[in-house]
């Protein structure tokens, strides 16, 4: 899915988002609201540079545009798998980005995210999954790891995982499973600008994914266990 066509649909009053390598950055106008936009394209491998660039954008927004909402546009194949990025502390760079997002939220910025193509764990945890609300296009895929690698690490047969990925929401990569589990609010189709405006209005700043997962039946235990741990 081309980011450009998605941006056109989201920002009915125009945008100035540019792609610099794999980084997406700019502003978009949806109705009367200006969004700071940051994200990735080309199924980006998220390494230290890209993470730092995204954090820079969030910080700039906090500093120069108080209360401006932020939208992450997500298309990633996951974290960059390189010795060099580990050496430099990529986990720490990503943690920095996550903290920037949380700080922005606490300072009154709404943070939304849209997975417009794919999203894999490490490329997604510090950005999209930190949002007040994360949406996805109907064809989007969200996964933890490719099945072959999962099979190697877990020593479960790949055929078994492939079968599970077809039938079990816990293993299936389609974004609809994440909707059911409460991590994705909804699949967005049609008038994306209207969806974005509604999300801005309705998104909660507390983490409601557990309750959503329970209400939708996709993740039945997390909310209850957390409630018991909090209260007992």
């Amino acid at each position, binding site marked *: 899915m081309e980011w450009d066509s998605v941006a056109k649909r989201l920002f009915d009053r125009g945008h100035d988002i540019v792609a610099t390598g794999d980084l997406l950055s700019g502003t978009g106008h949806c109705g009367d609201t200006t969004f700071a936009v940051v994200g990735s394209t080309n199924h980006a491998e998220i390494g230290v540079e890209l993470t*730092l660039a995204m954090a820079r954008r969030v910080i700039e927004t906090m500093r120069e545009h108080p209360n401006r909402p932020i939208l992450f546009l997500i298309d990633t194949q996951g974290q960059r798998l390189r010795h060099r990025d580990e050496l*430099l502390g990529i986990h720490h760079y990503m943690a920095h980005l996550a903290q920037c997002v949380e700080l922005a939220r606490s300072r009154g910025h709404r943070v939304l995210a849209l997975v417009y193509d794919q999203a894999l764990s490490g490329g997604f945890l510090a950005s999209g999954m930190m949002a007040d609300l994360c949406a996805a296009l109907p064809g989007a895929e969200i996964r933890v790891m490719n099945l072959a690698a999962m099979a190697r690490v877990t020593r479960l047969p790949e055929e078994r995982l492939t079968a599970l990925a077809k039938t079990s929401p816990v293993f299936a990569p389609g974004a609809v499973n994440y909707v059911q589990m409460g991590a994705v609010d909804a699949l967005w189709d049609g008038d994306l600008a209207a969806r974005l405006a509604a999300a801005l209005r309705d998104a909660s700043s507390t983490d409601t994914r557990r309750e959503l997962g329970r209400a939708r039946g996709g993740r039945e235990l*997390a909310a209850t266990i957390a409630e018991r741990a909090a209260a007992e």
Partner: protein
Amino acid sequence: MQSYYEATARERIVGILDEGSWREILPPTTRTLSPHLAALDLPAAFDDGVVIGSGALDNLPVLLASQEGGFMGGAVGEIQGAKIVGLFERAKAQRVAGIVLLLESGGVRLQEANAGLIAVSEVIRAICAARVRGTPVVAAIGGKFGCFGGMGIAAGCCTRIVMSEEGRLGLSGPEVIETARGVEEFDSLDRALVWRTVGGKHRFLLGDCAMLVDDRQAAFREALARALRAGENLSLESVQHEQQILEERLARFGSHTDGEDIWRDLGFDKPANVPLLATDALVALSQQTRAA
């Protein structure tokens, strides 16, 4: 049990908290087992691999979570994640000096795939939210399984990290990188290489962890108490400062191919000796040379 590395999750709690202060929340008798493991015909644990509760650390009231690396490599599934997140919820209502996380985890529990990823994400968010509220979250990393994957990000979100030389902290484990990119990219069997890349000493010198201690329960206890007392500081100013530090790190070390090159740049004339230095000697030497 003197060694933090050798200790189980429960033994670490005994070694770190004030005697008699521990009260477990959702103990094994509550049988909070993972339903997903049964579906895969895998053994489950009554506490799903994490022990949570309240106690005192050097008289500081704390909430604490201790991961059991021996169970599924400490990987986080739906139940474990929910227990930890519930602990953080508790911190909103209960007066605590901070939250202590004894981390030992490979990250997302792959056997629970999507549920595991969401669980880790909720933990990361809970840590960040606690900090923004002014509650320090301090982490200890010093076990056999290290702290990787999404839990590596979670660790990085903590106020301060205490590590031993034996500990490892990163995002993608060496085996994962080797499987994806080949042995030339990262030889996961080269232990010395692994520790130069993600081990406690390197993390300390790089500035990713605040304190480096010996592999003794008592040493972790003392450092965690200090870490808690140093307070919480997340603000626009602090993240701007961190942004600058991380940009400098990239500029300065981005072309280096080995930990030794970084240590040399940090002022160690004989970087090959760093792995041989005793912890206190290294800490003393680094006062002059720390990146952060």
